[in-house]
């Protein structure tokens, strides 16, 4: 599929004669409290050409690292490196890659999109199990975000939109398909989502392939003032139904303070206290959350015209542990943005968000 896409793009490039070019440069300085530090230079180049019928978009990211590239994540009582489930070090090698690259064709209410691009199905700002096609943790400040290859067909007729997504990860066990039906009316936006995806589940002794079916229903309304939404989701995995429920609201107070609060319940989540095996499996399978009850918070405070403070957090309501990212951004002049971010956990040794060293990130960048 990737080769086919590449050939199509090569074929079409001569016809795409006038491009919009955007450059974004960022210098980032990472500091892991009392452990180490490193820095990176990021140059992101966006190329776009579009008209009513055709759009080509490419985003190329060059990231050059400098400094010490080792970072050890300590977990109480477990040496992850011995069991080989988690790297002791994060090896930082320079990266040059297309993070987005796609071609989009639009005609008569239909859209065909092929390539690397983001697909998001949920309303959630932080996390939702509906986002099977791509998910990126808001607390991961280090990893370069690269979107997977998708095929998307979408069709709209007035207030109804039907879309189909296929994702082939070149791995027989991890292809994904999803069908999304969306309806807009005066009072609410509703979405019905059905998908199938395979997943490789690991534990310390074996690897297993799991077939998942997902049924989701979402509703969003702003009819009552603040926006309100909920998502009901059933995940059928190996013949077992797992219910998930999410509801949230958001509002901007006095045009200065934005708050977005969500509650997430995974009725089949693990009960506390979590065992070491639970934590190991979480990292083995890259599960984002393992517990039952959570509160997500996203807030932004506009201090002045060019100064913003934001806080994103997840509170595990079972063990009361928390992970949060605090950000202060300042835009001193046009096209120049600086920010300081801190990721910190608050929890005891066996909690989901156990204590790890705080990560500080200072960024300064420009775009034009």
């Amino acid at each position, binding site marked *: 599929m990737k080769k086919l896409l590449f050939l199509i793009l090569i074929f079409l490039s001569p016809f795409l004669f006038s491009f*919009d070019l*955007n*450059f*974004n440069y960022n210098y980032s300085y990472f500091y892991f409290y009392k452990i180490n530090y490193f820095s990176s230079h990021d140059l992101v180049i*966006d190329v*776009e050409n579009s008209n009513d019928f055709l*759009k080509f*978009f490419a985003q190329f990211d060059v990231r050059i690292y400098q400094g010490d590239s080792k970072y050890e994540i300590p977990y109480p009582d477990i040496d992850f490196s011995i069991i080989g489930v988690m790297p002791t070090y994060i090896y930082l090698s320079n990266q040059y890659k297309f993070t987005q690259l796609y071609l*989009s064709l*639009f005609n*008569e*209410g*239909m*859209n065909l*999109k092929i390539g690397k*691009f*983001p*697909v*998001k199905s949920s309303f959630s700002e932080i996390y939702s199990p509906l986002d099977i096609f*791509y998910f990126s943790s808001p607390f991961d400040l280090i990893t370069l975000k690269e*979107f997977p290859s998708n095929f998307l067909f*979408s*069709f*709209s*007729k*007035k*207030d109804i*939109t039907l*879309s189909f997504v296929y994702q082939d990860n070149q791995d027989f066990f991890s292809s994904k398909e999803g069908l999304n039906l*969306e309806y*807009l*009316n*005066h009072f609410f*936006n509703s979405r019905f989502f059905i998908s199938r995806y395979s997943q490789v589940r690991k534990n310390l002794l074996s690897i297993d392939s799991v077939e998942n079916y997902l049924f989701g229903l979402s509703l*969003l309304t*702003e009819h009552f*003032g*603040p*926006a309100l939404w909920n998502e009901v989701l059933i995940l059928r995995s190996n013949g077992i139904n797992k219910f998930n429920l999410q509801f949230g609201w*958001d*509002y*901007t107070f006095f*045009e200065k303070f934005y708050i977005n609060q969500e509650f997430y319940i995974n009725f089949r989540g693990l009960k506390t206290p979590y065992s070491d095996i639970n934590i190991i499996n979480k990292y083995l399978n890259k599960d984002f959350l393992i517990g039952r009850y959570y509160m997500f918070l996203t807030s932004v405070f506009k201090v002045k*015209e060019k100064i913003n403070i934001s806080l994103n957090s997840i509170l595990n309501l079972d063990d009361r542990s928390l992970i949060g990212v605090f950000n202060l951004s300042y835009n001193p*002049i*046009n*096209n120049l943005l600086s920010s300081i971010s801190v990721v910190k956990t608050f929890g005891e040794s066996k909690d989901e968000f156990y204590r790890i060293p705080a990560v500080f990130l200072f960024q300064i960048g420009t*775009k*034009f």
Partner: protein
Amino acid sequence: MAKKIIFLLSSIFSILLFSYDKDYILEKVEKNLSVKNVIYRASMKIEDDENTRDMELLLYIKDEKNVYVEVISSSDGNRSRFLKKDNSMWLYLTSAGRSVLIKGHMLKEGFMGSSLSYEDISENRRLRDVYDINVIEDEKYYILEMKAKVEDAPYKFKKSYIRKDIFLPYKEEIYSSSNRLLKEFYIEDYEKIKDIYFPKKVVMKDLLQKKNITTVEYKEINLKDKLSDNYFTKTYLER
């Protein structure tokens, strides 16, 4: 007795005549300001204390419920797309691959940091559907005093100075509910197309800030018989 009857009749006629004038004036103004099935290509200049930003806009307006706005280029590299469907406005986030609802309370915020709000950019309802309007006349202008009569009116109170020759506002004053002057809006140039006077150059001044001036110049105005529904869909927004 005859004098009294004449006086009474003339009073009734003058009231009828005035109410006819008012509707006539508003009809004319609305014809110029609430145009349907039109595509604009415009440039926007945002000036504040320290910076000047430029952007190119594409606007598709089918009616008061279907508006599509695209920022096709900007000096700071930001591009975005907006879709107004009924009372809801959606913003497409290219980097996230999804569209988010711009909630009612956020519609009053500056569009891309300008002194025009999201509502200013996308509002296309008839004035009489949104405001209770009182018309006063002086030598130069018809002055429309507009008080919001619906919950989702962009402003609580505004005053519009309408030019008598073309029925386009020369100036609008926008007030808070406590009668404080918030913004001033000027139409500096216009163009006549098929009996409609289109604003060609508009300026919005945010008086709450030291210097915040937004100038929009409509470079191309393309009046259509009908605009396809396909432009006003989630698929087109997220294409």
